[in-house]
C-alpha cells in the first residue's frame, strides 16, 4: 500500500501545538492535568503534596500546561482553563472510563414495537366481547356433555389381548463346551475393598513443668510535663513563569542594518544554546559574557558576572 498523502504538515502542527502534545506524551504532565480537573481546583502546595513532588518539580511539570494555557492560577489556586477541559474531554479523561465488561458500542435506543398499544377504552370493549363469546362456548360444552355423554365421553373397549402370566420356570438347556474351544473368562473387578481409617491418638504428656513468675511492678510517675509547641512557618512563594505561548517561526539569518553601531571593549563572547526540540528551534537562548559588561538595569554591574537572557531571533 503506498503512503497516503498528508494534507497537513505534521511538524508544523507540532510546532503550533507543542505544549499540548508534550502534555499528552508525558504521562506525569497529563496525569497532573487530569488530577487537577478531578479535584476541580487545588492549592499549589496541596497539589505538590498529593503528587509527591517538590515545588521545583511541580513547576517543571506545570510549565507546559501553563504555556499551553491548559491551566490557570489565581490566588495560588490552580484550575483548568476551558481549553484544558476541552483537551481532556477529547482525550476521554473527563468521563469515567468504560470498564472492560461493558460493551464498547454506544447504547442503542429501544426498538419501537410494530404496533402501538390500543387505547384503554378499545381494549376494554374487546375484552368484553371476547369474554361473552367464551361464556357461550363453555355453556354449549356443558350442555353437550349432559345430552351426548357417549360422544364426549366414549365407553372404554375391553382389551383384545389378555396378559400372559408365566407360572413355570424356563426349561434348562444343556450346554457342552467344545474341546477345541478356548474358554475366555473375563473378570470384572468388583470394588469390594473398603478402607476404614482408624485413628488412634496417643498422647503421652511430658512431665509437667510449673513456672512461677514473680512480677514486681515499680512505677514511679514522673511529674507531668506540658510540651512546648513551637511552630515555624516559612511562607513560600510560587512564581508562575512568564509564558510565551507562541513559538516563533524558524529563524532566518539576520544582520545589523540601518547604520546600527554596536560598540564594545575587551573580549565579548556570544554563545547560544543548541537546538533541543524535535520540530526545530522555537526559542533561542544566548549568553553575552564579558568582564566589564554592563547590561542596563536588569542586573547590577558586577565584574565577572554573567548576564543571560533569551528571546526569539526574529525580535532583533
Amino acid at each position: 500500500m503506498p503512503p497516503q498523502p498528508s494534507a497537513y504538515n505534521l511538524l508544523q502542527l507540532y510546532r503550533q501545538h507543542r505544549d499540548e502534545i508534550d502534555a499528552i506524551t508525558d504521562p506525569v504532565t497529563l496525569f497532573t492535568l487530569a488530577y487537577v480537573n478531578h479535584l476541580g481546583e487545588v492549592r499549589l502546595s496541596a497539589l505538590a503534596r498529593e503528587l509527591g513532588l517538590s515545588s521545583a518539580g511541580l513547576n517543571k511539570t506545570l510549565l507546559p500546561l501553563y504555556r499551553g494555557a491548559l491551566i490557570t492560577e489565581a490566588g495560588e489556586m490552580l484550575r483548568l482553563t476551558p481549553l484544558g477541559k476541552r483537551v481532556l474531554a477529547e482525550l476521554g479523561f473527563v468521563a469515567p472510563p468504560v470498564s472492560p465488561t461493558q460493551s464498547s458500542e454506544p447504547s442503542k435506543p429501544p426498538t419501537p414495537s410494530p404496533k402501538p398499544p390500543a387505547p384503554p377504552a378499545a381494549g376494554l370493549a374487546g375484552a368484553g366481547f371476547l369474554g361473552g363469546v367464551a361464556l357461550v362456548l363453555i355453556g354449549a360444552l356443558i350442555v353437550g356433555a349432559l345430552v351426548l355423554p357417549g360422544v364426549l365421553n366414549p365407553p372404554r373397549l375391553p382389551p383384545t389381548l389378555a396378559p400372559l402370566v408365566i407360572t413355570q420356570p424356563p426349561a434348562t438347556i444343556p450346554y457342552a463346551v467344545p474341546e477345541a474351544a478356548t474358554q475366555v473368562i473375563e473378570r470384572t473387578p468388583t470394588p469390594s475393598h473398603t478402607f476404614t481409617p482408624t485413628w488412634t491418638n496417643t498422647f503421652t504428656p511430658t512431665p509437667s513443668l510449673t513456672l512461677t513468675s514473680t512480677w514486681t511492678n515499680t512505677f514511679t510517675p514522673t511529674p507531668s510535663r506540658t510540651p512546648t509547641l513551637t511552630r515555624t512557618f516559612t511562607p513560600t512563594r510560587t512564581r508562575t513563569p512568564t509564558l510565551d505561548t507562541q513559538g516563533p517561526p524558524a529563524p532566518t539569518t539576520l544582520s545589523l542594518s540601518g547604520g546600527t553601531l554596536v560598540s564594545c571593549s575587551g573580549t565579548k563572547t556570544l554563545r547560544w544554546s543548541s537546538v533541543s526540540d524535535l520540530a526545530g528551534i522555537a526559542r533561542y537562548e544566548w549568553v553575552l559574557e564579558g568582564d566589564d559588561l554592563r547590561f542596563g538595569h536588569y542586573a547590577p554591574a558586577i565584574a565577572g558576572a554573567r548576564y543571560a537572557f533569551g528571546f526569539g531571533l526574529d525580535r532583533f
Partner: protein
Amino acid sequence: MSSVQPVQLSPRARAYFEQNFKPQYEQLQRAVRQTPLAILVWGPGASAGDLYQKRAQIRDELRRRGHAAFFSEDLAALSPATGSQKGIEFLQAQAADLIVVMQASYGSVAEVHDFAEHRVINFKMLIFIDERATDGYSYRGALQELKTLYNNVETYRYPDDITQCHLLTKVLAKVDVLQAVKYRVMQNAASWGLSAGGA
C-alpha cells in the same frame, strides 16, 4: 509515549490514578500507537552491506509498529510510467509524513541536495550522516542550515552507531511525537481549526 510510573502519590491521588487515569491512559496509548505514519527510508542499496542492513532494520521496525514504511525502490511499480525519477521521488516525499535518510550513498546525497531547498519537504527529512563527512560541502552547504532550521540532522560514528541501535532510537523518538500529532489531527481536527479527515 513512556510508561506510567506512579511515584509517591497520596492515597487519594493513587486511587484516582489506578481507577480512572491509568485505564484511560493505556487506552489512549493504544489508540495513538494505532495511528500509522507514511515514512520513506532513503539510503544505500544492498551493496552497501551493514549500512543497508541498518536501513532495512529501520524500515522493518517501523512496519512492525504499524507504519507504512517504504524504500523508494519498493514503490517503483506504483510510480507513473512517465515523469522523471526526480519528479517521482518528489511526489513520494510530498506524500510522506517523515523521510528517514541515511546519507551514505551517492543516491541519498543527491536526494538530500535535491530537496533541501523545498520547504514542503526539507523539514520532513531526518538525516543521518557520518561524522567524518561534516567538514565536506554537503554538510556545510545544505545540512548545517537544515540542522539550524529544523534540528533534523544527526551525525553517527561508524561502525559503532550502526551496529548498535542509536539511529533507530532517534527515529522512533521522532515518530512517537509525530504519531501523537497525527492522532490529534485525526481525532480532533476541529479543535485545531482544521478540516476533518485532512490527515
